[in-house]
């Protein structure tokens, strides 16, 4: 434990870290700058929800009528006239039957069975959303998809990806440092010896966590100074205005969450799951670095581990190798890819409810065990 401090100092001496952080902030600010166009309307909707609640009901419409004539008011009133109870008659099983069952997991009866069960359970969730009148939530009216994309598909996803890159860089750097500087012999024959890799992993984790937290805080502060969501935080994420484009469907389907989330709740839960995945990736990149030994090899292996599942998904789907396709959906990369659709029906990419949560829950202990196995192997392995 005493070595964690010195290992942290070694990491903080690396100037590339600060260049990387600077580049990330620049990228994030650029992304935020180019998300423009709907700030005024979103701000207006947020204030209206603060005053009149988030449900499109008589009270809400009455409040709108009392407001000064304004293009933003007109737009919101027009949007609200299109709002309705879509979950009353929504049948998730029919959706699955029509568009998913014949396309995916054909020839894999167990998986097809899981798919069907999933849509049956989704119906139960739809009923809960209906009971909460989630569909009547204003969210951001016809700017809802824009807000969700900015928040989750652009900014949070960028931050998550940056976190993964940062962890990779710091872990590979610290684990490979001794070989790079030819200090491995004197370092690993010291009293602490090869157990030092545990201190290195913790040090890399602490520095990564601090840097990632810094990136998140600064980026989100800037984002929320540009996008003032106000009352939208208390709107329901499964609003009728919130649609998901799925290539398998000729229509946009609703944002069907397994539980009823406010936007704030969905955001917080996404951050929590993102944190767990970052911890998982810390363990994975530590395992890779310890097993590869060499910095360049470790970096390539980590990059391959991160990128290959995305290609494999397409490959397995084309060849209709459904078991590998499905198992691949549990990979960390696929989870990041679908980050903006977490806790919803993910079409063919999810066969059990809350699959992303189960994935993270499985990855964490598995990679923790594999990390300790890698350390044990390293302790018994010759260094030269």
């Amino acid at each position, binding site marked *: 434990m005493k070595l964690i401090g010195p290992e942290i100092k070694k990491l903080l*001496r690396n100037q590339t870290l600060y260049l990387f952080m600077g580049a990330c902030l620049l990228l994030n600010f650029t992304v935020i700058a180019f998300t423009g166009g709907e700030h005024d309307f979103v701000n207006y909707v947020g204030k209206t929800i603060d005053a009149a609640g988030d449900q499109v009901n008589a009270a809400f419409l009455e409040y709108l009528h009392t407001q000064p004539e304004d293009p933003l008011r007109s737009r919101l009133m027009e949007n609200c006239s299109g709002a309705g109870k879509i979950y009353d008659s929504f049948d998730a099983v029919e959706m699955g039957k029509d568009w998913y069952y014949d396309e995916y997991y054909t020839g894999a009866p167990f998986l097809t069975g899981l798919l069907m069960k999933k849509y049956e359970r989704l119906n139960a969730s739809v009923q809960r959303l209906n009971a909460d009148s989630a569909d009547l939530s204003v969210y951001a009216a016809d700017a809802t998809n824009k807000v969700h994309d900015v928040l989750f598909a652009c900014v949070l996803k960028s931050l998550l990806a940056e976190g993964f890159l940062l962890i990779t860089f710091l872990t590979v750097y610290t684990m490979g440092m001794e070989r790079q*500087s030819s200090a491995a*012999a*004197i370092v*690993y024959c010291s*009293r602490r*010896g090869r157990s030092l890799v545990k201190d290195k992993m913790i040090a890399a984790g602490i520095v990564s966590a601090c840097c990632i937290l810094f990136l998140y805080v600064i980026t989100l502060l800037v984002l929320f100074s540009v996008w003032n969501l106000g009352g939208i935080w208390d709107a329901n994420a499964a609003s009728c205005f919130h649609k998901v484009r799925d290539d398998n469907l000729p229509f946009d389907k609703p944002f069907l969450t397994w539980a009823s989330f406010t936007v704030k709740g969905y955001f917080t839960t996404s951050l929590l799951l993102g944190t767990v995945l970052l911890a998982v990736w810390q363990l994975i990149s530590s395992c890779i670095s310890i097993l590869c030994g060499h910095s360049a090899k470790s970096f390539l292996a980590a990059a391959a581990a991160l990128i290959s599942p995305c290609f494999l998904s397409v490959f397995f789907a084309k060849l209709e190798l459904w078991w590998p396709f499905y198992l691949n959906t549990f990979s960390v990369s696929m989870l990041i890819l679908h980050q903006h659709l977490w806790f919803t029906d993910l079409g063919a990419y999810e066969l059990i409810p809350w699959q992303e949560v189960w994935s993270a829950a499985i990855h964490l202990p598995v990679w923790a065990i594999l990390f300790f196995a890698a350390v044990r192997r390293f302790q018994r392995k010759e260094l030269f």
Partner: protein
Amino acid sequence: MLSVNNVTKKYGSFTALENINIEFDRGVYGLLAPNGAGKTTLMRMLATLSFPTKGEILWNGTDIRQLDEEYRNILGFLPQQFGYYKNYSPRQFLHYMAALKGIGRRAADQKINTLLERVALMDSADQKMKQFSGGMIQRVGIAQALLNDPELLILDEPTAGLDPKERVRFRSMLHSLAGDRIVILSTHIVSDIETIADKILLLKDHKLLCCEAPAKICAALRDRVFEVPVGNRIKTPYEVLYERQTDMGTVSRIYSEAYPEGAVKVSPNLEDVFLIVYRDERKEK
């Protein structure tokens, strides 16, 4: 006491060391052999960086792998290629090494100051090591090996790459290092150890040839080493070891079983032993 019992080290089909048996007690041991003989292989095994294919290495009767941290706590090691962090000063680097060796901050401060004085680096203690010469780097290496006041000090080719001045400085330092510990020093430079080693270990054909005091090793060549002026005809079979300049001109130092005419008998030294024992390897090269 450090015991190396029937240790063999193989890398695939290549045998680096075969059936090595040595016991080390307090004193300075010089491991003398040409490049590629297995010196570094043995040093690395003693430093727990690699492991024997067969046999065992014991510290006070217990396998060093079993002792683990307890063994490494009494060990000081200077490898052949001493790596360091270029942007660290010696003081910063030694503080890091002290932390690795489990030495507390205050104790480390005192020890580091003492060691920096000892290796004559006090004036450069806070300069970045990327500005240092090879000799200065090596002195930092020795300092880090001594941080934990080791009972077992292993130095692998510590004078490699040093200029004569630095080598003389190192030899002087080594005299003071011996004390109450086991010092194992590997080299292919005879002058590094001939005056300070209590025992010399010779490796040949990946096996231990002998482990004796220098005087005893040299005594084996008594009456067989001669010097003769270059150009003299020598009728008896002989082998030239090397030539040197004297006031009388150039002389050849030769090895011969019989006393050559016109030659002067000289006392054999460790260099002679080295050249004779490893002459086959010289011829191959």
